[in-house]
């Protein structure tokens, strides 16, 4: 019951988008999207996605190999440093690059297609890097040893055994990058690149062109769905590569790079230095000016309060719905449960700008009482982040096997009392972690927040975006600093907890 309700709530935006498309009628939608401008935009968007995917894959795989499989100097330190760009939300990254561009560019401008490619690559390659590094760390050395015994040298093993083994991880990391690039709104709008997300937003909030916005959003949704489908297929392939047999995987002997050690370290250092150095320099340059601006402290505190409040509301609602959904998915492996889990994941993968737009229409036409209230924004967070929370709940539920409830019932507790006194307390840490993740992620969310915030309310993310749009870099700096700090928390756990760079015996 609760699981169905949770899924229904999460599906509101997707369903409502379909309703709007149907209302507008296919001919009108087709007329809107079959124009030279849309064609050019589609080309630009896909080129951006393709280039960022390619760049991220090259950076990510190279960095993962160097840090986990070679004797490159400083690989342990770089191993963690190279994951940290993930902590910089793309729009914050775009801001920090634009805010120091005058140091190397006479015009002082940092924008356009190639700027977007660079920024998005530098801050999304960790998706590939982390998945591949963790796959490499978990890879069984059996096949590699057999290949060596059959006469393959180091490079032959790498090419014929190691890399094919992490291909699924490469694919799923790469597809995540593609999906995030396609969904990205903040960076492309700050860097003034006309992609679908930016066009949807502009059509709606500047041009008040609702049909146009819906038409563009539906094209964007189709692209996103295509990537999701491919990503799912790649994930299925990953299972087939799972390690067979028992016994702990042995850690491989690091590959000796010889004279290549220095260039390898230089490559790792350069990527880390550029990706982390620019935001750092930018904040150093503007932060003091930003906080000493008259009235800035009060404004930051107000935005912080608004962010905390609405994110907390979103996190509480999301977790409340995630508990039945996650429990259901973990305990009952029926087709219905699996289907619900997947459906919810699909809406999670839709760009925030689509969710925001759809809920705006939903608020205006269906739930006017919610329109212009924080509740509608909290609902957007539920839709966007429910899978994060329900995955955490499902993991926690696996810590509390049904036999615990059965034992409690045999000791005289009703099933409901057993749930309250045994299952939920056991799941609490996992649920807490899920809530914290949703909370931190909601604080960073930009496009849906921009579209749905009540008039007059500003969060950390919207303040940063507004100031950056008018090139008020100093005023934006405190917000950027806070947002990076917030995002650094889960990233730190991800980078250090992935097991890829754990202590080993070498």
């Amino acid at each position: 019951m609760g699981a169905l309700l949770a899924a229904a709530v999460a599906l509101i935006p997707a369903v409502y988008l379909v309703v709007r498309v149907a209302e507008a009628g296919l001919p009108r939608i087709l007329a809107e999207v079959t124009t030279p401008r849309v064609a050019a935009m589609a080309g630009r968007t896909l080129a951006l996605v393709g280039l960022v995917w390619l760049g991220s894959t090259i950076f990510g795989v190279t960095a993962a190999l160097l840090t986990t499989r070679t004797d490159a100097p400083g690989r342990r330190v770089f191993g963690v440093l190279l994951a940290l760009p993930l902590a910089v939300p793309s729009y914050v990254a775009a801001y920090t690059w634009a805010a120091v561009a005058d140091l190397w560019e006479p015009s002082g401008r940092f924008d356009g297609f190639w700027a977007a490619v660079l920024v998005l690559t530098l801050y999304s390659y960790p998706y590939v890097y982390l998945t591949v590094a963790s796959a490499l760390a978990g890879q069984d050395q059996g096949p590699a040893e057999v290949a060596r015994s059959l006469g393959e040298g180091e490079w032959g093993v790498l090419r014929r055994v190691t890399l094919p083994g992490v291909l699924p991880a490469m694919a799923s990391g790469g597809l995540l990058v593609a999906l995030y690039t396609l969904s990205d709104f903040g960076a492309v709008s700050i860097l003034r690149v006309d992609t679908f997300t930016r066009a949807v937003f502009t059509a709606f909030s500047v041009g008040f062109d609702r049909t146009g916005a819906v038409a563009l959003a539906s094209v964007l949704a189709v692209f996103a769905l295509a990537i999701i489908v491919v990503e799912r297929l790649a994930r299925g392939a990953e299972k087939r590569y799972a390690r067979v047999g028992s016994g702990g995987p042995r850690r491989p002997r690091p590959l000796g790079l010889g004279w290549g050690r220095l260039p390898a370290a230089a490559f790792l250092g350069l990527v880390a230095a550029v990706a982390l150095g620019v935001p750092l320099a930018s904040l150093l340059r503007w932060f003091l000016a930003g906080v000493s601006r008259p009235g800035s402290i009060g404004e930051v505190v107000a935005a912080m309060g608004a962010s905390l409040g609405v994110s907390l509301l979103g996190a509480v609602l999301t977790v409340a719905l995630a508990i039945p959904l996650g429990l259901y998915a973990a305990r009952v492996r029926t087709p219905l449960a699996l289907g619900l889990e997947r459906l919810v994941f699909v809406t999670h993968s839709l760009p925030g700008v689509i969710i925001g737009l759809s809920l705006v229409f939903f608020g205006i036409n269906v739930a006017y009482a919610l329109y212009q209230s924080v509740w509608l924004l909290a609902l957007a967070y539920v839709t966007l982040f429910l899978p994060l929370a329900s995955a955490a709940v499902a993991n926690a539920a696996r810590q509390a096997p049904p036999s615990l409830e059965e034992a409690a019932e045999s000791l005289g507790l009703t099933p409901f009392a057993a749930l309250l006194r045994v299952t939920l307390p056991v799941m609490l840490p996992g649920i807490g972690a899920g809530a914290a993740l949703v909370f931190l992620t909601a604080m960073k969310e930009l496009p849906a927040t921009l579209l749905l915030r009540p008039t007059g309310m500003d969060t950390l993310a919207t303040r940063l975006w507004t100031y950056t749009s008018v090139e008020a870099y100093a005023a934006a700096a405190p917000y950027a600093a806070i947002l990076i700090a917030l995002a650094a928390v889960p990233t730190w756990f991800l980078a250090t907890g992935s097991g890829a760079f754990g202590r080993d015996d070498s």
Partner: protein
Amino acid sequence: MTRAPLTTGSTTGSMTTALQVRGVRKSFPGVQALDSVDLDVRAGELVALLGPSGCGKTTLLRSVAGFERIDSGRIALNGHVVALEGLHLPTHRREVGIVPQEGALFPHLRVAENVGFGLARRSPARAARIEEFLELVGLAGYGRRMPHELSGGQQQRVALARALAPGPALVLLDEPFSALDAGLRTELRADVRRVLHEQNMTALLVTHDQSEALSVADRIAVMSSGRVVQTASPLELYSHPADPWVATFLGEAWWLPGRVEGGQLRTSIGPLPVGGGLGPRARALVRPEQVVLASDGTPALVTDVAFHGHDALLGLRLADGTPLQCRLAHSTTLPREGENVGVRVTGEPLLVEAG
């Protein structure tokens, strides 16, 4: 917490039958898990439900516990019906204690809180009862520990104390020793048996381990394909199995074919005593420990030797090709493969059938 008054002092006359299972059937999609099962457990008795995996023993245990609804038949605890077709008393009102396979201790509660889980929260005797049962299972002073600080064997002891503390009508043990290593298992088995008897507790133990059932239980119910095929004391079961399947499930056994003459079965290893009512030809089932080495016995070829420490199992072949095994109690010398020895059969055969 409300509980039906199910404890002793029952109104029916059958005071000695703590658990009565009659004609219980239960099917899952595509499987008849329980096919008209009958079982009686007398008060204070420890009965083992023994059978290969998939025979329905766990389903029967879960049906008695109330985790599964039966399709038809009847289950009564201390004379009170708890399950019928269309009637299902929920687990929390049945007063059955459960010791699951891996203990399933509540990981967020201390040992004492685990043991006290089924006791009334404000009862004045609560603390004393927790202490009493911890002591009973040999864990006095462990009350403040968390479950993860205990070894597997200790966890199972706590699970037993937790199940016994509320004074249930029946304790169900679901392969409680299977996750432990061999030495610990023997020790815990003996302790569990002692505790259950000291408390005069009625218990049903599910196991697929023959030696466990034989060494622990007062009686054994052997299950196969959803039915109880024989219920008897361990000794009775081992030496008088109801059919060849039960005989071989409980241990090795070999057929010796022969001719029936004057109340004896004449086999290639010598005459064996048999009853009447057989045709001219019959065969008898014997256990390896009935086969002994004797220098004046029938000659046999040693085909293989498996040394187990406390004993050894010799594979033999008689002159006419009949295969046989001989269990040799611990000795300092063993025959070698390919050697010829003399053998003889002692005692009565387990089973004799015509053919």
